């Protein structure tokens, strides 16, 4: 059987690709579309490094098939900034040193953005539980949590 032809939208741009059934959305993003900002840490949904938004829902790209992306809208870390203006989460991760080695950072940012969309004023505990699916081995999470809290505060101020 030939590969499947899939049309999907990534960060607002339409992409077409051919894929085998077993290729995951993560494989497609990284190896076919060369959008390598989304990282692979485990490929089993246990580390969150490949977190992306799929039609507005936070998912692990490693647990979505490429063929399932047909007709859907995907957001990745590459789409967070607007032009040369970083997203407040990106800016606060920089200021608070929320990224040490940086491998978990794209997934953390996407997951944190999803949180702030549903809860603009999360408590520390809420952030910790929301981000429990995003493993970080460098920071002990402290500076990540602080960066998310600071970004939330700034985004609330901008809104009000």
């Amino acid at each position, binding site marked *: 059987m030939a590969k499947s032809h899939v049309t999907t939208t990534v960060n607002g741009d339409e992409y077409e690709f051919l894929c085998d059934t077993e290729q995951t959305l993560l494989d497609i993003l990284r190896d076919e579309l060369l959008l390598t900002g989304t990282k692979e840490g485990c490929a089993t949904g246990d580390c969150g490094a490949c977190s992306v938004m799929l039609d507005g829902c936070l998912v692990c790209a490693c647990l979505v098939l490429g063929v399932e992306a047909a007709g859907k809208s995907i957001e990745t870390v590459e789409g967070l900034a607007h032009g040369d203006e970083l997203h407040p989460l990106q800016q606060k991760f920089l200021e608070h040193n929320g*990224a040490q080695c940086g491998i978990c950072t794209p997934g953390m940012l996407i997951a944190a953005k999803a949180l702030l969309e549903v809860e603009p004023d999360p408590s520390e505990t809420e952030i910790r539980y929301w981000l429990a*699916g995003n493993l970080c081995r460098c920071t002990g999470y402290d500076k990540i*949590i602080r960066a998310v809290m600071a970004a939330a505060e700034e985004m609330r101020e901008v809104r009000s």
Partner: protein
Amino acid sequence: MTITQDDLRYDPDRKLKVVGTTPIKPDGVDKVTGRAKFGADVHLPGMLVGKVLRSPYAHAIIESIDTSAAEALAGVKAVVTRDDFPELPPGEFRNISCNFMAREKAFYDGHAVAAVAATSERIAKKALKLIVVDYQVLPHVIDVMDAIKPDAPILFEDMVTQGMDPARGGPTNIVQRKEFTMGDADAGFAEADIIVERVFDTKPMHQGYIEPQACVANYTEDGQTELWCCTQGHFIYRTRLAAVLKMDISKIRVTQSELGGGFGGKTMFYIEPVAIALSRKANRPVKITLTRNEVLRATGPVAGTHSRIKMGMTKDGKFTAAEAELYFQTGPFTGSAFVNAPQAMFTRYDLQNIRAVGYEVVSNRPKVNAFRAPCVPQVVFGVEGVIDELAKKIGMDPIDLRLRNAAVEGYETIYGATFGPVGFVETLEAAKAHPHYTAPLGANQGRGVATGFWFNRGGETTASLNITPDGTVTLLLGNPDVAGSRVSICMMVAEELGIGVDKVRPIIGDTSTLGFNRVTAGSRVTFSAGIAVVLSARKAIKILCQRAAMMWDVPEDGVVFEDGHVRPASSNVGDFEPLSIADIAKKATETGGPIAGHAEIVAEGAGPGFGCHIVDVEVDKETGAVKIVRYTVVQDAGKAIHPHQVEGQYQGAAAQGIGWALNEEYIYDQDGRMENAGFLDYRIPVASDLPMIDTVIIEVPNPLHPYGLRGVGEVPLVPTMAAIANAIDDAIGIRPRSLPMSPPKVLKLIEEAAEGRDRA
């Protein structure tokens, strides 16, 4: 006169503008936008996918390997086995070679036995299934103490224990024995009023970096190799690759990617020589990316240990002697760095009588790799537990007991060095004064403290600093940045040159751009590269001064460099407007050419580091679950160049230690196969497991560094497990002496305590 390392000494009176601030790091934007290129992010035209076939047996003779069916599969471009790698004489390189590709025997579940390169991952995986390996399965041994039993399965029939006099004959799994002594331990124990002697066990854990190893190798027909990989030391990779592949060092060019975590685990390669061999056979670039399963089964881990620790003390709390007998599991090959342990475990206390013996033992687990303060945290788990017990026996505050025995400047260590100015006392005093130490505890909560030491390291380091025509600076460094060194190094350059840190642009050069740099490990890089770049900057400053003197037509000693400008040394020299670096750089062509400074040094004078951790735990007495309620790390950094980076090291190491303390361990089935080779069952801490981790940075400057800094990456792991064990003891009244302190084990202790059973 040439400037040398010896000219760079700490100047307490220097006013600092950049050092000690927290600018955004130069690698930051790339990391928050997804641009940063990690190991698996390299794509080359025509690149093949490499996959590795691994032994499903813990211990087996490999009778034969038939690759013909795999080679015949359409899309397969190369298959390699043990036959594709040179035979080497016994020694380090042969061990390395036999670890990345099994020879006569497979020594652990996950040991590589063959590899393929194919046009797609699907074909590569299919090809692996077509390789027929004929194994003769042998009895195996996993645990370090099982491996030294008389009837244990033997990994190497010809092994002779080194360091025994006379050398102990085989068969044995003990690789070597090392003894370190100072003073007279027996006499010291004879002086003691109180002696505590306990046995402790720790389990191997994995470094747990989130980025699996990945590399791309491109071997060309003229025998040159380019390699892109995630590594803590691309220079040492190059040296070792040349040795195991029998190539010229200069024909291998290694470019390091951003490193997605290493913690010691990426100081030694696994897939790189395999990718090169595949590329050589296929005449195309080959990329290998490990799966998480492979990472856990075949890389890492950290040595598991068994230790007996004995300490003596007078009734007024003065330590009189210490003794240790230590067993380290090293996997099938030597390389655990276990000799660190006897040298570091008691060092920080003013002990005069020590006897410490270590044994390194092979077993059927992956070869161990480095991890923050290799082999030290495991045994400090015991030392700090014994000290806690000693404090209880005389009713002394545990920090007071440590203060009573703290080593200070002038202490001669067991490894021969004499302490210069050290910050152990200051660290303990700050811990004692911290509000955490006296905060009230809730129900079922307990508090523990523990301390740690690490030597800190220097070593071969190079740097090249170029002043561009507009006066900004490019900086070429030779050490992968494992999290925060780049910005700190740039800050020291900015401070020297009197320019903003954003005017210093660093890159980490590949192995063809600089001289040899020792691996990023042992808390050596910010210290060593700091010296190298300060030296480079001062050389450049000297040239800037020469050029300014030339421009003004005054003698060279008639100018000085201050605040980013060359000025006349005095009004006698003449009335000249100060020249900025840019002013001078603009005229560089007319005054003698580009301006630069570089350094090639063996950095010396690393100052030891000390830390004290305070932790509160809450124990669910019905389930044995331990929750970390509050955590504080106090540690001497000498000088925090960029405090956020230092705090990040303290916090991250503590979190790793919490994982090691509570849950992380390898679980093997009866056939020696790892059962928890994934992040679901190999349980590193998640965000909701941890509280904020408070930090206190102590600054007792290291006089042998221009900014006084000490390495900070190793120490903050060392006390963690001991501190948590001491806290659990405080909460439940019984001390765990075996890692991990997982719920079933803690629950058992609680039940034993309730039954009043005496385990001592």
